[in-house]
């Protein structure tokens, strides 16, 4: 019989988290949706990094992708359409201690939330921003999004989308203070995982576009890349996304790209003959807004009262 020592009750045991500690509910995404693979990758990262669930926050907007926080057993904030980024910035402004992720979609981020998108990139507050880019509005049933290819059918453009799509990577690479810009695909779990991991490890805002399949509305959008992986150009570099032999066997078409080279990054981003994946750009010296906004957050009550007294004194007569 083992006796109980009373001080054991007060002891905080070192905790070890398993995948189930991050899983909540059964995802309601369609079978075959790329979001399932992303969720698995994120939960794997949480476990690998041993995130305490209470110190981890997933913020999302509205859309299929934005259901994401409901499937994580962490803190979550399922907000408004397009507004995940300002909310996440508000959280980060005075909470340097939290692991912060933003989940957004192509409609959420590049359309209704585009104004915030540009500024959040510039603020460069430490968080991982995952753009689930399936190039269509899913939750509202198949409307054209800014990233829908020209000519593609949708319920709002039954004769095909009129104009060329917006390139999210080119946009982000045009914004001052961008510090981590990458693309990956949902159908290659090793590359997906390594990209998300590198994004988490970056000190600043990591923008990751995940090319994501929607089996329901756009089942054929990416089959050419899946059937012929040489149409994907994998960028590799010692400072980039770590590439394994397995990845190299699958993505035979690979090239070396130094992610510190912004001009080359822009050139790669604008390629249309192949789909470049990997790390386009990384700048560890970019300014971080939260380093300004968090100044003074630990001011004591005594110091606050003293400062207030002094301030009121300025108006005393």
């Amino acid at each position, binding site marked *: 019989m083992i006796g109980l020592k009373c001080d054991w009750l007060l002891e905080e045991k070192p905790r070890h988290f398993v995948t189930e500690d991050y899983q909540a509910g059964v995802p309601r995404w369609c079978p075959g949706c790329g979001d399932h693979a992303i969720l698995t990758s994120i939960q794997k990262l949480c476990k690998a990094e041993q995130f305490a669930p209470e110190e981890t926050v997933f913020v999302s907007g509205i859309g299929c992708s934005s259901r994401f926080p409901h499937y994580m057993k962490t803190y979550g904030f399922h907000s408004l359409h397009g507004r995940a980024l300002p909310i996440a910035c508000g959280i980060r402004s005075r909470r340097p201690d939290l692991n912060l992720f933003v989940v957004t979609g192509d409609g959420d981020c590049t359309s209704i939330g585009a104004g915030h998108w540009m500024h959040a990139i510039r603020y460069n507050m430490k968080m991982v921003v995952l753009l689930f880019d399936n190039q269509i509005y899913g939750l509202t049933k198949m409307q054209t999004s800014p990233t829908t290819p020209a000519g593609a059918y949708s319920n709002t453009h039954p004769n095909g989308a009129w104009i060329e799509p917006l390139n999210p990577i080119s946009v982000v690479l045009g914004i001052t203070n961008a510090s981590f810009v990458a693309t990956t695909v949902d159908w290659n779990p090793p590359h997906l995982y390594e990209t998300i991991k590198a994004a988490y490890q970056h000190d600043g805002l990591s923008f990751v576009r995940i090319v994501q399949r929607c089996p329901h509305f756009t089942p054929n959008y990416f089959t050419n890349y899946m059937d012929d992986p040489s149409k994907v150009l994998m960028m590799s570099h010692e400072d980039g996304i770590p590439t394994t032999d397995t990845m190299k066997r699958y993505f035979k078409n690979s090239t070396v790209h130094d992610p510190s080279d912004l001009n080359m990054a822009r050139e790669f981003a604008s390629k249309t003959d192949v789909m470049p994946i990997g790390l386009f750009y990384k700048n560890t010296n970019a300014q971080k807004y939260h380093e300004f906004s968090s100044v003074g957050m630990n001011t004591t009550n005594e110091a*606050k009262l003293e400062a207030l007294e002094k301030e009121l004194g300025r108006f005393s007569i």
Partner: protein
Amino acid sequence: MYPITPATSVTHYMASVFKDVGGFVHQAEDEIAAIGFAIGASYAGKTALTVTSGPGIALKTEMIGLAVMAEVPLVVVDVQRGGPSTGLPTKVEQADLLAILYGAAGDAPKIIIAPATIEECFHFMISARKLAEQYRCPVFVLTDANLATGVQPFPKPQLKEEWLSPPIDQSRWDTNVKPYDWDPETGVSPRPIPGQKNGNYVLTGLAHNSSSKVAYESEANQNATAMRSRKLATLQKSLKPPSINGDESGDLLIVGWGSTLGAIEEAVETARAEGTSVSSVHLKFLSPLEPGLEEIFKKFKQVITVEINYSDDMNDPMYNRGNMRHAQLATILRSLTLVDIKSWSRVPGFPLQPEMIHQVINDEVAKLGGTK
């Protein structure tokens, strides 16, 4: 904040002194981001305030609904100016009351308070934060261009530590308490803050049950909506009836709110010195209203609000009971007290003068056949 006249002077001042008290001012990319940033900071346990004027309120409306729905404490200051649209950006008006009270998709009850003096502006901000935290909902502080640009001496406040926001709670959350553990009596519930162990929940703007799980069941939505509404009635129970300036009964009662206090009281004082039977009441709480109003109103032959917003001219034969649009506070008071309250309101772009109000008093008392 996002720059908007006449609210910017608030943030100019705060930007210059906030660093000394451990705060910071975020100039956001737009009005929506400004309130989103504040909601994010508040969700994460920090005290947050956003300051704007009427057009900014219009832009923030969806986010205000989110803060109500998800029960995020938040203080919103609206320095009212002339409207609608760009309106009279530098001029005074009290015309955002109904927009804030009702301007939301769905049912979105929130607390609204209105300081009448610069001294009240100081103290109401402390109350606003406490109310937001206690009732877990947005609190609106309605001021106007008149108060924002005015100067008025008042006794130097004796600072108290209890005025400061407490440190964020990072203690272990009781697993038996749900994230929206509504007290059926008061509608109030405690909230978990990220970092609190076992408090993990997903805040959502979707209809949700007490566990913060998305709930489309009709009963769950009815209950959650009722709980959010109930908080206002709970708050009203803690309020006192307003004090009456003048006699407790008589011919005419003037009701006002916000920056018109000085002008109304001066006009009432002059009229009373002339022997007119007139009193006034100035409301500080607009949502919920202070209690006991119906009883107060019934002791006067006529009640009339004086406000700086638009109402149809009650002396114009074009208007009758079926089509007349009343001033904003009058609209609320009529619906909640069933007293046939009149309104006299103007949108001149300048503060109402005591002489204008004195004339209204004389005209109304004459209609009543009152005595001087």
